[in-house]
Structure formats: C-alpha cells, structure tokens
C-alpha cells in the first residue's frame, strides 16, 4: 500500500507535527551514517533527508528455526552453547563486547569451577588503582566481566567504518523482525519469543546475495548488502565468519549455518540466562493456578447453588 502512495506519503510527512518529525526519520539510513550524524539535531537531520520512500525492512523475513529453548519446556542445548561460546570467543569478540556477562556465569554452560577459572585467566583485565594509584593489568578471575574489545563506543565506531559493533549481552532480545498481523496473534499460542535468534541466524547467513537494481542504488558505500538486516538494505558489518573458520571438537558441522545457530543460541543465553528456570517455574505456577481456579469454581457453584442469578 505504501508503494502506491508515495505522493500522499510525502504530504503526510510534510504535515506531520513537528513533535513527531523524528518519528518519520527514514530507516533508509544505515547505522554508519547515524553514527556519523552524532551531535546533530535529529529533527534537523530529518528535514535534510526529506525522502518520500520508506521501504519495509528487513527486505526478507527470517526463517523460523527449531530452538531447544523454544516452547513451554524449553531448555538449553549445553553442547550448542559451548560451541557458541567458542565462536564468540574466536570470532565475534574481536569487535563485539559482552559486558553484562561475567565469567562466573559460564558455569551455567556446563563448565566446572576450575574450567571457568582457567577460561577467565586467559583474559587480561585492567584493575586498580593500586596503593600507588596506578592501574594495572592482571589475569581475569571468575567475578570479572567479559572485557570489551574497544575502550569506548567512539573508538569502536572509529575502528569500524563509523558504526560501533553492538554489545552482545542483550542483542538476542534487542533485535527482531516485525511480526505482522495476524502472525503476532498466533505467536500468543505458539509462545514465539525466538525472534532474536532467528534474526541473528538469518543475518549471519544472509550475505552474498544479489540486490535488485533499485535496492542497489540505496546501498551506501562501505556497507554490505543483506536482505535480512532490519533497518537498511546493507550494514557496516562485513560477512563475519566463513565455513571451517572455527574448529568444533564434538563433530558438529563446521559451516556458517551451524556457527550462526550456535552463536545465536549462545546469545539468547547471554541475554536471558534465567530462561530455562523461568519456563520451569512457569509450568509449576500454571498447574497450581489452574487447579486452584478449578477448586474455586466448584466452591463457587456450591455457594451459589440455591441462589438463581
């Protein structure tokens, strides 16, 4: 419908109250230029842009995968999370931080306390100040958090074509393709909450496709076409991983598809470490409430039995 009405759309933007100027800001813009625009007034930016076309992103909907943690009895596939951690450590962590996750949390992935200590010790963490007022480096301990690869977002942006790589801690809950009508209603019944991992898998495996000529024109230089990216036709991140790049000890296929599944599952754990506990608690709670409601209904029937109402 939106494509049929570009003129009306332009009129709508022109008439839109100033309060909502930022609202209409075109998602054409990729994160690179958004970062570059740092410091500008968003409303002024919008006025400069003035484009009348708002294509719907992502261009392609992500595929819905089967996740072990989906549904009412969802649970972690610990081997998968361990593989995901390996992918994160060897590939993603070069650019992406994960500052809300501590090494001690990794025990939830099936590692022993000693393994976690050894894992943490592989990292160098800045501590201090010491008695002399100096900051110093020391090996990581389990209570430390994953160190970020860049000292601050500005440094991260400067090293990555103007777009700071987002922190991984919450990304699996902070990204999802929009679920249209009536899908979002069915999601209530299917308990679909895997939009984040589905999106991450689709994005990592979605590189290397040919854009249509119309789309190609809107791709900013220095960005990579990916029809699954949720806010533009292309993103600043190059294809992050290739087949065989990470060695799996458990015989899982060493493909981009498998890597992206594993890292997406790992990111879901990082974003929602209590997911399994939540669902298990929910099961008990639901049984209690349904039985309690049934008992109350019976008592209610008894109380009202002699009273037509």
């Amino acid at each position, binding site marked *: *419908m*939106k494509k049929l*009405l570009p003129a*009306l*759309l332009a009129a*709508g933007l022109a*008439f*839109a*109250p*100033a*309060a*909502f100027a*930022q*609202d*209409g800001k075109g*998602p054409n813009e990729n994160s690179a230029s*958004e*970062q570059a625009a*740092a*410091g500008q007034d*968003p409303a002024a930016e919008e006025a400069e842009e003035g484009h009348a076309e*708002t294509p719907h992103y992502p261009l392609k909907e992500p595929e819905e995968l089967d996740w072990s943690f989906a549904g*009412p009895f969802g649970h972690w596939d610990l081997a998968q999370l361990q593989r995901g951690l390996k992918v994160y450590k060897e590939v993603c962590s070069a650019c992406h931080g994960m500052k*809300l996750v501590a090494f001690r949390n990794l025990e939830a992935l099936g590692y022993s306390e000693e393994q976690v200590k050894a894992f943490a010790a592989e990292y160098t963490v800045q501590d201090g100040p010491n008695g002399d007022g100096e900051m110093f480096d020391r090996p990581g301990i389990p209570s430390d958090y994953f160190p970020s690869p860049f000292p601050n977002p500005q440094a991260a942006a400067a090293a990555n074509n103007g777009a700071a790589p*987002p922190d991984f*801690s*919450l990304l699996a*809950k*902070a*990204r*999802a393709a929009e679920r249209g009508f009536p899908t979002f209603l069915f*999601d*209530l019944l299917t*308990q679909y*909450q895997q939009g*984040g991992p589905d999106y991450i898998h689709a994005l990592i495996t979605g590189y290397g496709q040919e854009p249509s000529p119309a789309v190609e024109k809107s791709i900013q230089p220095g960005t990579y076409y990916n029809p699954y990216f949720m*806010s533009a036709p292309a993103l600043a991140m190059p294809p992050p991983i290739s087949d065989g790049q990470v060695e799996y000890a458990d015989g899982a296929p060493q493909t981009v598809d498998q890597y992206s599944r594993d890292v997406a599952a790992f990111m879901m754990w990082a*974003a*929602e*470490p*209590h997911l399994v506990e*939540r*669902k298990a*608690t*929910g099961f008990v*709670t*639901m049984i209690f*409430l349904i039985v*309690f*409601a049934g008992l*109350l*209904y019976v*008592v*209610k029937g008894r*109380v*009202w039995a*002699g*009273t*037509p*109402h």
Partner: protein
Amino acid sequence: MSGHSSYVPSKGVMQWLDARLPLPRLFYDSFVAYPVPRNLNYAYTFGGILALFLGVQILTGIVLAMHYAANSAIAFDSVEKIMRDVNWGWLLRYMHANGASFFFIAVYVHIFRGLYYGSYKAPREVLWILGVIIFLLMMATAFMGYVLPWGQMSFWGATVITNFFTAFPLIGDPIHQLLLGGFAVDNATLNRFFSLHYLLPFMIAGVVILHVWALHVTGQTNPTGVEVKSSKDTVPFTPHATIKDGFAMVVFLALFAYMVFYLPNYLGHPDNYVEANPLKTPSHIVPEWYFLPFYAMLRAITFNIGPIDSKLGGVLVMFGSILVLFFLPWLDTSRIRSTAFRPMYKIFFWILVADCVFLGWLGSKPPEGVYPALALAGTIYYFGHFLIVLPVLGLVETPKRLPGSITEAVLARNGGGGTPAGAAAAPDTKG
C-alpha cells in the same frame, strides 16, 4: 451501603477494638455483609481484579526499587543486574512490566463494562469521575515507569510525550522544562520520574478508597440497570461475591502468569533492550500498546485550525478524548441504564469498541500514507459517539420493556421452563 450496621462483634479483642475504633465493623460492613445484586456477571469482577493488580504492582515495585538505581549512567545496567543477579529478580521485573499491561487490560474491561451497563448515570456520577481520575493517574504512572529502564524507547518515548507540553502557548515551555528538569530528557528527568512513579501508585490507592466508598454509598449497578428494590434482589458480599471475584482473579492471574513465564517480552519493544542514546533516534517510536489509541488521536490532527496549529490541535484532541469522559454522565440523555434494554445503543457501543481497537492499530503504524486520514476518521467518530450519538440517541431511541425488579428478571431467565413457584421458593438471601 449506608444503613445501620449488622455487625455483632464476638467477645474479647474485637469487641474491645470495636468500641474504640470500629475498624472491624467497617470491614464487616464493606466486605462481608455488603449487599450486592444477585445477578452480577463476570464483567463485574474486574474491580476486584484491579485492586489485586494495584497490590501486585506496588509490592513488586517496592522490591524492584530496592535494587534499581535512578541515575542515567547506571539505570539500564541496574535493571539488568535485577534480571541476572538479584534472586528472583527476573520474576519481579517481568511481573512488574507485564503487570502494567494486565492492569490496563483489566481497566479497559472495567471501563467498557461501565459504559455498557450505564454505571456512570445518576446517582453514580462521582463514582465514575473518581474512576476517570484513577485512569489518568494510571496513565501517568505507567508512562513514567516505562522511562525508568532507560532503554531507547524509554528515552525517545519520554522525549516525544513531554514534547506535547511545548504545544501550549506561553505556559508550554516553562511546563516542559519543569517536567524535564532541563531542556532535554536527561538524568534530572529520570530522577523526578522515578520519584513520581513511586508516589503516584499511593495516590491511586487513595482515590481507589474514595472510589470504593462512593460505590458502597450508591451500591453496584447490575446487568438489568434496575436499582435494588428489596433485600430479595441482593446477596451478601461474602461468600457470594468473594468466591466469584476470587475465581475470576485466579483465572486472570493464570493468563498473567502465562505471559510472565512464557512470553515476557511479547508486549514490550526490542529497542528497549538497547540503552538510551540521545544521539540515535529509533526509526519508529511507538508507545506501549495501552496508549496506542490516544497516540493515534494525537497524530490524527495534521492540519492547522485557525490559530491552533496541528501540534496543539493533536494535544488538545488527545487530552479531550479523556476529558470528555468526565462529562459522560450528563452527555447520555437516556434514562435507561443498561444497554441490554437499548437496542440501538447496543450497536453504537460495539462500534465504539471497534473504533478504539481501530485507533489502537493506527497508533502502531507510522504517520504516513493513509494512516493519518484513517486516524482522523476514527477520532471524529470517537468524539461523535460521546458528543452526538449519546445525547441524541437517548431522545429518539425506544427502549425495551424493563423488568420490574432484579429478582423478576432473574426468575424470568432461570425459570424459563416454567416453575416460577419452585424458583421463588428457592432459599433466599439473608442480605
């Protein structure tokens, strides 16, 4: 209801206390002996459900406040600490966030039940107005609560909503700055929003007490709209209403638990898991679902009306959409209370419900293309319902014949097969 108390204190402490501060008597008269119409349906259970959810929100909120830090530098991370490291923190936070949504689900059912059964009509105008005040306080509380996690939607939602106030000439900018504690949403804003978010629920509780007091003076309406005429029309609150409300509460809690445990982020926005960044505007700013109809009305005014520019027009329309509810008791000219006996109004009632859902859908859409025009149509209909349909319909509509009393209506329905004598002989109430 007003009237002499039937409370007879048992011996000992209760008798001693009753002679000094008749608190037990107040509770007995309000929640045990209080007579309620015998024909109340489940739509009438939402008042109790709302009281329960006010309690849930206050209790979870107080514990969350023990762990939350209202400082823009650490607010986002402190919420994540709650989610990760606080014992049962994830449960508290998901209950509190989804509790707000379920609070609004319940209040919307409660309000539309009032509209359907004419609960706002004399002598219940004050009861209704207190209810609208509670609704306004709820909206303010929910809005400020949504800002506290300091995510992208928190920040930009706050920026957009507080910007409304600049629409007012002269007083707009000073109000805006007072609200924000500066010229833009920042740490000062977060601090005062947290303070007010903690204060307002207790103000809600205060108005709820007045609301319940007013209810207990006039008595409840009922699906027939016919006032209680004799004690045969009523049953005592306990056990009849207590058990029915209790059952409805537990069913509602089960739905709530389903969302909290299985779909905790379904009603939220993914962008709110990204920390607030004043330099990066989300491509599409949307409020929480319960504000969407009002958001649609705000954006429906895309043109200037004389000296009122589109922005001020939108703000006036949005506030007006709630303001009009205050005048509802005098806008409805029909003397028939219950929609069950108003065949024409019944149709318009359901059109209004559909219109509100329609506006909610439009509120979630970007203000482009045909959407503002559709929103304008929906807004015009919303006001038309209250300002034109209600006054006119009361004068032209021919209502159905009202039953003589609640008991008569109940027996006609239950004894449909034809043993009115047997039904009448059924053990009646003591109320």
